[in-house]
């Protein structure tokens, strides 16, 4: 990485595609201790502000015929609510606020991250890993609390021929424990890659001849990233629902 940047600098180009992800303290200083307000803190706070603006201020009129903001809020509510209900069933609905929290945070953070000069909190594995581990731990604990030892039936594929079952059980067990990894890396990887690619194209804009192509490429990538911002939030949420369903109804 460093040697690449070094080579590029010699060619007159400056590529620092990953600089946008550096975490810096907001009020000067170098040390980032656990409580220091950083740019990550700022953009997480802005995500909270966005959630409040959309879901609380947008619905403050409680209109029967909704305004635009209220329509979006109701759309988001209905979208996640229907997802939870369809996948987890009626008894999954009581976990709806939890899933809605995950969805709203990810979708707001993703979209805020698309603003120029912003910082994308969901591009960090620390963030997405915590989100995924929260889901993993919740689902595992819930599975055992709700079903007891019967939750282990999730790994014992009773519909398969008996000799295959131990092998399948090992595969199922591995896939179960890989879930939080894929769950978190999918989100952070997608967001990070998109932002880094845009930054690389932006670096090319320094060359006059290439710059129109570069600007076009940035525009196209940006459009794609808008899509990715929503889709990754959707994917994260729907996978959470699927995992939750496994915990509530562990039979295959």
């Amino acid at each position, binding site marked *: *990485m*460093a*040697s690449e*940047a*070094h080579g590029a*600098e010699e060619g007159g180009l400056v590529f*620092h595609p*990953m*600089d946008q*992800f*550096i*975490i810096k303290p907001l009020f000067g200083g170098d040390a*980032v*201790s*656990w*409580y*220091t*307000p*950083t740019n*990550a*803190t700022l953009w*997480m*706070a802005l*995500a*909270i502000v966005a*959630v*409040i603006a959309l*879901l*609380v201020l947008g*619905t403050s009129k*409680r*209109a*029967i015929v*909704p305004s635009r903001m*209220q329509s979006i*809020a*109701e759309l988001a*509510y*209905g979208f996640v609510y229907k997802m939870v209900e369809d996948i987890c069933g009626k008894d999954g609905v009581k976990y*709806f*606020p*939890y899933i*809605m*929290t*995950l969805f*709203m*945070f990810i979708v707001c953070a993703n979209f805020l991250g698309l603003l120029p000069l912003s910082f994308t*909190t969901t*591009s*960090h*594995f*620390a*963030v997405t890993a*915590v*989100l995924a581990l*929260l889901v993993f731990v919740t689902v595992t604990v819930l599975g055992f609390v709700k079903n007891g030892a019967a939750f282990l039936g999730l790994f014992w594929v009773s519909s398969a021929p008996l000799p295959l079952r131990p092998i399948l059980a090992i595969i199922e067990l591995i896939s179960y424990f890989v879930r939080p990894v894929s769950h978190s890396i999918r989100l*952070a990887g997608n967001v*990070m890659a998109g932002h880094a690619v845009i930054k690389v194209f932006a670096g090319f804009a320094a060359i006059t001849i290439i710059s129109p192509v570069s600007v076009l490429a940035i525009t196209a990538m940006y459009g794609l990233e808008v899509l990715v911002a929503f889709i990754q939030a959707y994917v994260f949420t729907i996978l959470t629902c699927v995992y939750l369903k496994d915990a509530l109804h562990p039979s295959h």
Partner: protein
Amino acid sequence: MATDTHESGTAAADAAHAAAESAPGMPQLDFSTFPNQIFWLVVTLVVIYLILSRVALPRIGGILAERAGTITNDLAAAEDLKAMAVEAEKAYEKALADARAEAQRIAGETRAEIQADLDDAIAKADAEIAAKAAESEKAIAEIRASALESIEAVAKDTAAEIVTALGAKADDAGVASAVTERMKG
């Protein structure tokens, strides 16, 4: 990195130093910032969860339920109104049919009355005509009877005169019986 530094000495070392300052690999893997991010993320999630579960979600759920209720009520009201309209139409049809039947009845009654009057008048006229005809017949019969009587008397007188004129003594009784005998034949 390592080979770079060995080969080109201080320049490469400087560049590597600069690169390390500006782009230290992936900032995502800088574990020194993890506690910070995790702490603030947990704070953020807790805040969002509280906002959603205490304020936003009950409110939106309420709005949606209220709207569903309003729509259901409106639909029910529309259904009621529609039923009322159907009823009104039925009542109108019934009134129309009643009126038509009434008109028919009145027309029938009138026709019957007129027929009765007419029948009465015809019967009366018939009776009068019959009476008049009977009277006339009686008159004719009387006239005929009187005419017959006159003819008999005239015949008797004439017969008696003829008998007298022939020089014979007219026997009244004989003449009368003879005439009566002849007239029957």
